[in-house]
Structures are given as structure tokens and as C-alpha cells.
């Protein structure tokens, strides 16, 4: 897994995004145990404190939960997963729409082009 990090945002937020994407994409299955903070930090080449902060953030979002002694696990709450998946999708769409608007497209045109692209792709 490549942890390509950009310069402008806090590192822990970028790690949150990477792990979220991995969970949604199925790289981690529901109920899977996450590697230890140290191992994850090693993998991402970041400071363990930063990784800790990212995992705390993920716990807050409900995607990850901690079992007192045995470590961190991916949530088995599929409703939660779907919710986050759709939230991420909405973020991407909003970004896409914003970019299209900057190019001067109206909503109808965007819709038309999108339909065309989807048909062509199939």
C-alpha cells in the first residue's frame, strides 16, 4: 500500500483518508483486526503518535473500534460502512461538480456528458 501524502493537510487526516478508503475498498474486511500502531506507522513511514491520532479519529467516526485488550478492529456495522462509503462518494461528486462548474458547464450539460461517458464505458 502506498501512502502518498500531500503537503498541505495534516498528516493524520491524510492517513484517516487512506485507511477509510482501504476499508471501503475491502482491503480490510469487516471484523478484521488492524495491525498495531507501530506496524502501521512503519508501513506508512510516519510517527507512531501521528498514527495513534489518526486511529483515534477513525474510532470517533465509528469505522474502527477498540477492544480493551486485544486491539483495534474494523467495524462490522454494515450500515455504518455504507453511510461512510456514500459520504465519500458525495465528496468526490461535489469535487467533480465544482471542477466542471469552473470549466463553465451547466448542470444539464454535465448530466448529458456523464450519461454519454457511462454508456461509452459499458
Amino acid at each position, binding site marked *: 500500500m502506498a501512502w502518498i501524502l500531500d503537503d498541505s493537510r495534516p498528516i493524520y487526516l491524510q492517513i484517516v483518508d487512506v485507511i477509510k478508503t482501504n476499508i471501503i475498498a475491502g482491503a480490510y474486511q469487516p471484523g478484521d483486526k488492524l495491525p498495531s500502531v507501530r506496524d502501521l506507522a512503519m508501513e506508512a513511514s*510516519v510517527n507512531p503518535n*501521528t498514527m495513534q491520532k489518526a486511529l483515534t479519529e477513525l474510532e470517533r467516526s465509528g469505522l474502527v473500534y477498540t477492544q480493551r485488550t486485544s486491539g483495534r478492529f474494523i467495524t462490522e456495522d454494515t450500515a455504518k460502512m455504507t453511510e461512510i462509503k456514500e459520504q465519500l462518494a458525495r465528496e468526490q461528486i461535489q469535487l467533480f461538480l465544482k471542477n466542471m462548474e469552473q470549466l463553465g458547464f451547466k448542470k444539464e450539460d454535465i448530466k448529458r456528458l456523464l450519461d454519454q461517458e457511462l454508456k461509452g464505458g459499458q
Partner: protein
Amino acid sequence: MEQLLSCQNLTKRYGYKTALDSINLTIERGRIIGLLGPNGSGKTTLIKLINGLLAPTEGLLLINGAIPGPETKKIVSYLPERTYFNSWMKVTDILDFFCDFYSDFDRNRAIEMLHRLNIDEKDRLSSMSKGTKEKVQLIMVMSRDADLYCLDEPIGGVDPAARDYILQTIITNYNERASVLISTHLISDIENVLDDVIFIQNGHIRLTTSVDDIREQEGKSVDALFREVFRC
């Protein structure tokens, strides 16, 4: 959190030249800190003062509440920016040396790291390249269970693969009781492993903050901020 290092009005002058000018600084446990500044800014002077290789002209420097001396040297592990071993020594000689003098030295950890780099314990330093010698030295320094690690330009002259290895070593050996102070001017390389940064210039501390704060408040990397602060 507990204070591991504190400097109060710490000043070091060499003749008429002031290398550090009334520095106030504290370092807590469990942090990885970048000591960042241009060449000649006072980074090495500060690290030498921490290790008792220089005596302060004025002010106070305390490690775990004590001024540098035999007691603080038990808990500080130091990687200078030069090689300090005799070239006739074999790796085993160095292991023996560290085992004898540092009670917190973990020989097995060192051997494991040496093997991972394919360094034979029977090798003599004189037969090694400069880069390999530097790695051996880093392994020795990181194989101690110290409270404070001072790494002076650990990634200065090494290739990218070795640089990654060094950063991995620092992360692997991290523990929440200990702090790591890394001096460098190659910021982008180590930015991701840092908690905090100290910007130092002309013997003055320009800024101490966390990496996340820089990114959140300034919206830019430490490297970018550094270039801005120290623009020539």
C-alpha cells in the same frame, strides 16, 4: 507531561561569536522532534551542550532535572555527525564496548539490525564504506533504551534507501517514555516522522510548534514554511 529536557537562558559563545543566545526550550517525553535550521544556526552546538561535549557560557541545561554529567549520559544516546570509532575495531569490539559501558544497551537488538543490513559482526570498520560505518553507528545508538536520543544530521550524506532505513529504525525503536531529537536541514525527507519542530536561526529559536499545527494553520508543509521563514 513530564519534562525531559529544559534549557533556561542557555547561551554559548565561542570567543566573540555567539552560537546560542539565551535559549529557552523544553522537550517532553514521547516526542520525535526536528531541530531545523540552516547551516551554522546553532543546531550542533545545542546537541553538544546536551551531551556535555561543551559547557554553557551562561544559563542552565537540565536533562531529567540534572545538569549534563555521568548520570545524564546514562539516559542520553547520541549520534554525532562524524564517525568516532577506531578503524581497527571489529563490529564485535564495538558491541562489547557498548555492552560494557551502557547498561541500557540491547545487544540482541543491535545484532538483529546488523544482520538485516548484511553487516557481519567480524567485519572491521576499516573495510567498510563511509555509509556502512554511519549505519553501524546509528544501530549502536538506537539499540540503547535511552530516554533521549540526539541524532545530529543522521541523513546528511546517505542515499535514499539508507535514509528510509534510518527513518524506519527511528520509528521502530520509538517508545512513549523516550524522545528523539533530530537535527537536519533536509526537512522534506523527515517531515512525516516528526511530531514537533524547532526552527533555529543565528542562535535564536524562531519557532517551536507541532507539525500538525503548521499544516492546519498555515496550510503548508514544514518544508514550505521553513523556506519561507529562512528565505535568503
